[in-house]
């Protein structure tokens, strides 16, 4: 059993983990950079410690400082969340060398899966199918030399990468050199490692991943799939489970392959095996993410398994509590980003002057922000994950559309309307989702469908608000004269 866990992360995922700790009776320790002081996750922790320094390298990526805080505060374990140090084998090793429990797989498993080339080789040996491609060890010259044999369109990916950084699609030979330079530079900046590799870009295919869970007692299971095909700039925006592309047979085959992948590296804890699935129903291993994933809630909603709680349980030396796979209904997650979808999804900043999240049956919001917070360029632009569950896919889409209509974010541009339009897009409704669908549906970029009525209404509201100085007089005066709600005056009983 764990007693006190340091959460080496921030924002939304730190909130998620700290809440799970609270539920499990584990004390949570948050670390935060100066520019995160006062944010939600620091309040959800039993102890919150400010990190010295500026910028990511000195704060959330500063292994020594984080480890020292864990030791100074009597922690027995470290949860890395996702991003940051979550897939750093050296950090996992350092945590273990300090006598603390690392909530995640072994450093050996992280190393084997974290390096895409080693992962490919390991998977080939384990009999898991991999994508045709060439592995590059010799820098730019070798990339240029190898590319023609892989064929176009091709994809350049950071060997150490993830999250779309250092990843470039190349459609023509003449773009290769500049794109390769950009990919290597982004890889160097994001991961401190500029190695890349070249693989064939499989167009029209789906990105489907399998959640796996393994404990110390030799039990390795899969928890079904997540369909993550809707992506922009190789970052996921819309994820769902189950996938319309999988029948029970393919699910079982992919689930078995995922469990084989996990067993091949003696995996422990929660992990995700990503596959590309072609229109013909072939599937290829893409990579394994050796951490909890952003989109884990959709699996939680359809399987009823609390994945973060299982991570804590497994790391504490207990057996997992899951029974046989039992998927029920349909769940969808969308990622609310501070970005402008009508301007090539460029990140946006601003103050969240209004942040009114939807509620109601089957609606879950995982976020680390709240009204009044400033969105800055310092961190990832993801503001929140909105997740819905409903008995069927059709109802889940309707519920998501309703929830997104209710979602008010003012002061910072977001992709909320883009997400809302996805819910009623015919291709999405038909389940015809592929990794290239955003480029396919909006080749010249997306613009909101604001028919005359909407812009006229907005204009009327803006002009009336300007005339009446709306919002200026609401606070302070008149607070005592609020008419009491009838529900608090009538002595009403509910059945």
């Amino acid at each position, binding site marked *: 059993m764990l007693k006190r866990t340091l959460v080496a992360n921030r924002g939304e995922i730190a909130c998620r983990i700290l809440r799970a700790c609270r539920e499990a009776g584990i004390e949570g320790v948050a670390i935060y950079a100066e520019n995160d002081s006062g944010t939600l996750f620091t309040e959800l922790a039993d102890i919150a410690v400010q990190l010295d320094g500026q910028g990511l390298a000195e704060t959330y990526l500063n292994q020594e400082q984080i480890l020292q805080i864990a030791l100074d505060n009597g922690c027995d374990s470290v949860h890395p969340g996702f991003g940051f140090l979550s897939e750093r084998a050296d950090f996992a090793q350092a945590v273990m060398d300090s006598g603390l429990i690392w909530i995640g797989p072994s450093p050996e498993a992280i190393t084997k899966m974290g390096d895409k080339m080693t992962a490919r080789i390991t998977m080939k040996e384990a009999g898991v199918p991999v994508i045709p491609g060439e592995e590059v060890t010799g820098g730019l010259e070798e990339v240029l030399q190898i590319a023609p044999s892989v064929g176009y369109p091709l994809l350049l990916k950071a060997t150490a990468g993830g999250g779309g950084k250092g990843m470039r699609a190349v459609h023509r030979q003449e773009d290769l050199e500049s794109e390769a330079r950009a990919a290597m530079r982004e890889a160097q900046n994001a991961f401190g490692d500029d190695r890349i590799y070249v693989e064939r870009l499989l167009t029209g295919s789906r990105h489907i991943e399998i959640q796996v869970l393994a404990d110390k007692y030799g039990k390795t299971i899969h928890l079904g799939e997540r369909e993550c095909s809707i992506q922009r700039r190789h970052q996921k925006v819309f994820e769902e489970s189950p996938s319309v592309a999988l029948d029970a047979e393919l699910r079982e085959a992919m689930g078995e392959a995922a469990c084989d992948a996990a067993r091949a590296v003696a995996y422990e804890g929660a992990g995700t095996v990503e596959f590309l699935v072609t229109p013909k129903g072939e599937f290829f291993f893409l990579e394994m993410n050796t951490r909890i994933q952003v989109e884990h809630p959709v699996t939680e909603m359809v399987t009823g398994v609390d994945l973060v709680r299982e991570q804590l349980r497994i790391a504490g030396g207990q057996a997992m509590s899951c029974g046989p796979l039992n998927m029920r209904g349909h769940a969808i997650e969308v990622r609310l980003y501070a970005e402008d979808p009508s301007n090539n999804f460029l990140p946006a900043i601003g103050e969240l002057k209004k942040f009114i999240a939807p509620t109601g049956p089957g609606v879950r919001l995982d976020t680390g922000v709240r009204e009044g917070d400033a969105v800055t360029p310092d961190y990832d632009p993801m503001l929140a994950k909105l997740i819905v569950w409903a008995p069927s896919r059709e109802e889940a889409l309707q519920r998501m559309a309703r929830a997104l209509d209710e979602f008010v974010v003012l002061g910072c541009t977001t992709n909320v309307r883009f997400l809302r339009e996805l819910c009623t897009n015919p291709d999405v409704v038909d389940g015809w989702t592929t990794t290239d669908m955003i480029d396919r549906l909006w080749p010249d970029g997306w613009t909101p469908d604001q028919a005359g009525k909407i812009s006229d*209404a*907005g204009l009327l509201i803006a002009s009336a608000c300007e005339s009446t100085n709306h919002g200026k007089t609401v606070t302070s005066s008149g607070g005592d004269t609020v008419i009491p709600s009838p529900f608090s005056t009538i002595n009403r009983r509910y059945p």
Partner: protein
Amino acid sequence: MEFKTSNGRIEIDAIRDGDSFIHEGMILHTGEDLWLEIEGRKHKAVATKVGDVWWVHVMGHTLQFEVVEAGASSSDDEGGLTAPMPGKILEVHVNEGQSVRSGDILMVMEAMKMEHKIVASSGGKVESIHFKEGDQVPQGAELLTLSE
């Protein structure tokens, strides 16, 4: 009253009736909450002002309207190429005096850990370049000036 939007300037003359405003068959009731009546249905709206810009949420849409001071000229709609985000200049692809065509990449900047290309929206000549590689630029900064 005049506003600037992403689609240009737009004027409105709503009829005021007490706390209500009427325009194009729509009625907006103001007060602590905003209620829009349209085609026999009511919709709650939320609005807040940031600087000179009214942010409006209504019927699942978010819109922005910048208040234009009466008598202001429209010259501020034109101008150079500005930084869409605070960030860092990674590459400068052009020299002063160079001719460029529409679609040419002028600069590459990094913001939010992603690279963004600054592209010429029309052809012209590079009159001046205001930043060099490695410079940090604030949001809205004019990066370079093109002449027609």
